[in-house]
């Protein structure tokens, strides 16, 4: 297959956002979306989704389970810009507003087969104490206007985060790569 023209390959991703561990928060839902380079395009499936709201189980596990399906196929000519899945988790605060509980991103696995990924989640933190109090009180936390920022490397300097969820939403992803 030594042709000069760029060869197209397909990347099929099946999986689910399985569950999360957030010791401090309950009643959470998650949104996923994909971030990819210019040479990539989704050909089938949904590249974004919002899950149901889940509560912690009553038993000793205290598990937050979504079991939320992910099914998407990408087409590309270049591995640069390999897709990343960006997860944002939201939940109610004490006043009932929907606030962000964590953002996280991970690359789609590179080799065919079954993979399990655990993703740490971050929350942007205000740098001044007054702003922290005001945002807690008003229910308006620092939030990203576009969650896709989490998947990029540039522009992160100066941002302060704290991790609230040693959280793993776990995409169990099956990856199959087909070359055409």
């Amino acid at each position, binding site marked *: 297959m030594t042709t000069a023209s760029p060869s197209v390959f397909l990347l099929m991703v099946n999986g689910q956002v399985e569950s999360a561990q957030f*010791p401090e928060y309950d009643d959470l839902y998650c949104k996923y979306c994909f971030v990819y*380079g210019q040479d990539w395009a989704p050909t089938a499936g949904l590249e974004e989704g919002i899950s149901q709201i889940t509560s912690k189980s009553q038993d000793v596990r205290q598990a937050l389970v979504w079991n939320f399906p992910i099914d998407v196929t990408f087409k590309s000519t*270049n*591995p*640069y*810009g*390999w897709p*990343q899945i960006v997860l944002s988790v939201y939940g109610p605060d004490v006043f009932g507003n929907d606030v962000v509980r964590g953002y*996280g*991103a*991970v*690359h789609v*696995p*590179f*080799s065919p087969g079954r993979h399990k990924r655990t*993703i*740490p989640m*971050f929350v942007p*933190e205000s*740098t001044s104490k007054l702003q922290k109090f005001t945002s807690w009180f008003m229910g308006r936390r620092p939030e990203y206007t576009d969650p896709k920022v*989490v*998947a*990029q*490397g*540039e522009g*992160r*300097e*100066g*941002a*302060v*985060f*704290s*991790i*609230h*969820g*040693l959280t793993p939403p776990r995409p169990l992803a099956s990856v199959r790569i087909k070359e055409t």
Partner: protein
Amino acid sequence: MAEVHVIGQIMGASGFSESSLFCKWGIHTGAAWKLLSGVREGQTQVDTPQIGEMAYWSHPIDLHFATKGLQGWPRLHFQVWSQDSFGRCQLAGYGFCHVPSSPGTHQLACPTWRPLGSWQEQLARAFVGGGPQLLHGDTIYSGADRYRLHTAAGGTVHLEISLLLRHFDRYGVEC
């Protein structure tokens, strides 16, 4: 030309005595290598762990190189800094590791070190902060002139890097 894709994440750091860490990373290659896409260096966000002691950055790395030779295989180098509540930054460690040369996904743990300085400087660092830093960043990934340094260990930087190689068989290189 043979091509190398380095795709992955700087996952985070553990074992540092300071919290609120961020990392400046860069990649150094030999003269035969050309960067086709991606950014050669960057800086992660500052992370303050609320749970556990590992600081997580999940900083994506996506680099596409073309090369004419194996010399100067890419090396990732890191400077881990801590930031206190006043916004001052203090060096926590320097480290480097070679990008793996076999295709696939690799988990890398890169140990770090920091320069010690004289006992007066160490005392000052304990009370006021600061401390000696390298003038030339290339000492982090090169062996020359290291014998002049007296250093202490820092923590470990954790990475997950996947490597895709293309066209190496044309040049008789087995991967």
